[in-house]
């Protein structure tokens, strides 16, 4: 669907006319990210992170394909093949650092993208499907990130693989056989490394597929916006090209600048030194920590320290860890407030800035800290708030809150007045 005032694709060159009749790919592009897609004119800079995420996915796929040409997924040589890339492959160090830091950049961008969605309730009707597909992409990203971190076959690769697949071992009855089936053995070894590589190469293309669906689903109702007021007339929108290509373009430059600053001057800042030690099943690292982007969820996992009635602490932790993301799937039905944007929801806004954000930051910090006090107690308090926020506070807030008055339209929000509003009032 599109808006009736959307520009129509009219190819002038005979070849493009011929192409448009046979295979209208240019028309598809024109309507998806060209002048044929009307976008709310009031989008703020938080709406630029979707485009950046797409750029990250591109960087990861290109650098990843090149790395795969030189990497060897075999327990005996995987570590050395990565060092071969770093030392002997032309520009190999650049590809590998870009890929490792690219994963981090992808997650930074995606966390902003997700929390933008939380604040402006981008998950609400009519965009539930956009949101659901987005959560699927996030889960696929986490799986891909985890699998990729195992491939260099350093100490954290090995022990991370052991801990994460060990989580499946917490499932009653089938846990242990399931874990062995996933690993292809009793502990991570060549079988696990090979299948992890295979899946690590596959999943990004699955992500591409779901991203296409994500954007497709977005184009049906059109983009949300900071007021949460739906598009009413043509004056509420501008065409994606040139307006948002120009805006996304220059912010992509800012993003790449920051990314390259880290890549060229502090490429190991976000990694763990232990992963420069070859995997050794006989020597457990002092603190096993996953990559930084898993820290909040790792903190939730470790927050459950005692059995809850008949449920073992580990199982509680595993359920909570997966549950902490799965709960996002239900957001469109938990938050019933008719107002979308947090900018017009006084109570919701307080819980967002003074509840969810601090809780997330504490979970981030504690997930990377050793499993000792005071981090355990801190992560318990933060995790408690996290679950209360989504499952208890959000449904209740939407029931009791009195939202602030909304602007009549996007045009009014931007220009301070809207001719159509006067007409509507007069009529």
């Amino acid at each position, binding site marked *: 669907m599109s808006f009736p005032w959307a520009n129509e694709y009219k190819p002038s060159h005979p070849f493009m006319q011929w192409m448009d009749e046979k295979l209208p790919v240019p028309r598809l592009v024109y309507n998806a990210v060209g002048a044929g897609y009307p976008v709310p*004119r009031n989008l703020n800079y938080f709406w630029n992170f979707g485009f950046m995420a797409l750029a990250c996915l591109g960087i990861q796929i290109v650098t990843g394909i090149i790395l795969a040409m030189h990497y060897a997924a075999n327990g005996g040589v995987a570590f*050395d093949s990565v*060092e071969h890339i*770093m*030392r002997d492959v032309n520009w190999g*160090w*650049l590809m590998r*650092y870009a890929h490792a830091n690219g994963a981090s950049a992808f997650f930074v961008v995606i966390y902003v993208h997700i929390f933008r969605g939380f604040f402006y309730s981008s998950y609400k009707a009519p965009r539930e499907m956009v949101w659901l597909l987005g959560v699927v992409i996030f889960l696929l990203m986490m799986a891909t990130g985890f699998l990729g971190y195992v491939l260099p076959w350093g100490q954290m690769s090995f022990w991370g693989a052991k801990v994460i697949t060990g989580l499946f071992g917490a499932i009653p009855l089938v846990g242990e056989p399931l874990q062995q089936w996933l690993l292809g053995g009793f502990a991570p070894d060549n079988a696990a490394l090979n299948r992890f590589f295979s899946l690590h190469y596959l999943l990004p293309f699955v992500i591409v597929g779901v991203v296409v669906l994500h954007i497709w689903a977005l184009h049906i109702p059109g983009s949300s916006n900071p007021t949460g007021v739906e598009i009413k007339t043509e004056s509420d929108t*501008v065409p994606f090209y*040139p*307006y948002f290509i*120009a*805006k996304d*373009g*220059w912010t992509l*430059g*800012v993003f790449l*600048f920051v990314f*390259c*600053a880290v*890549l*060229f*001057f502090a*490429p190991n800042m976000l990694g763990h*030194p*232990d992963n*420069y*030690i070859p995997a050794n099943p006989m020597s457990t690292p*002092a603190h096993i920590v996953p990559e930084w982007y898993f820290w909040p969820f790792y903190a939730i996992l470790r*927050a*459950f*320290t*005692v059995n*809850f009635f008949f449920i073992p*602490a580990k199982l*509680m932790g595993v359920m*909570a860890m997966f*549950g902490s993301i799965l709960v996002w799937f*239900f957001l469109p*039905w*938990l938050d*019933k407030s008719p107002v979308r944007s947090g900018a017009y929801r006084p109570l919701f806004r307080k819980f967002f800035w003074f509840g969810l954000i601090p809780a997330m930051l504490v979970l981030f910090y504690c997930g990377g800290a050793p499993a*000792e*006090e*005071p981090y*355990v*107690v801190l992560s*318990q*308090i933060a*995790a*408690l708030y996290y*679950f*209360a926020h*989504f*499952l*208890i506070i959000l*449904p209740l807030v939407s*029931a009791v809150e009195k939202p602030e008055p909304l602007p009549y339209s996007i045009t009014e929000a931007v*220009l*301070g007045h809207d001719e159509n509003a006067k007409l509507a009032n007069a009529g």
Partner: protein
Amino acid sequence: MARILSILVGLFFTAGLTWSLLVGLFNFEMPHSVEKDFHKHPKELHLSSDGAFGKFDRQQLQRGFQVYKEVCSACHSLRLVAFRDLAALGYNEAEVKAIAKGFQVPGIDPATGEVNSRPGIATDYFPKPFANDIAARAANNNAIPPDLSLMTKARHDGPAYVYSLLTGYADPATYKNEQGKALPKENYPPATGHFNPYFANLNLAMAPPLTSEGQVQYGEGSPKPTVDQMARDVAAFLVWTAEPKLEKRKQTGWPVLGFLLFATILGFLAFKNVWADKKKKA
């Protein structure tokens, strides 16, 4: 219905967490250990390769290589570095070949096919000092001397850690930590260990490798080979072995950032231009 269900699920998780939290608070105890009290953060070390404009000091790398060759290589391998790589330290082809020739590397007798050893050539990698891990353990009180190729990337504060460890050995009987506390007797290292506050568990299997000034004879015009200087030099050398492309990386970074800055400014101006008519409040 969705609300009631979600609140019930929420109560389940929050109850589980509250229970964990209460038990945690009841048994709350800050972690405490002798290691925490006595483990020291590495000393400061500034190398010419530090910072965004960092470049290797070739002379220092050569001295560090000499320390590795004459001291460390007796026990520690450098398996990811080939002799040919040493050209980056400023040695010419003949010098690299001569260095390689000075090492015996595993080989195969071309006449009989028997395993033997032969003088190294430029494409060989540094040979390992022990045939295997068991031999390494047997010769070192059951501890395997780790490979040093990536050492400065494989530890927090890499080069500073190496430098601190090499110069940080202390006598447990007279050592006082920052709070002036003496090491408890029961935490003295065993007879085969060596007290070193920069090592995570304070007890290092390696005996102090650099013990006296002039242990390594530096060439003309070099600084005095004090223990401190030798430790700095070998730390600098290990920064290079861990990342031979470090200099190239930093040098590539500047033009890339310069280009991106230029492109971003152009992009910003284009953005301003495109949006000019939409931003007006009329």
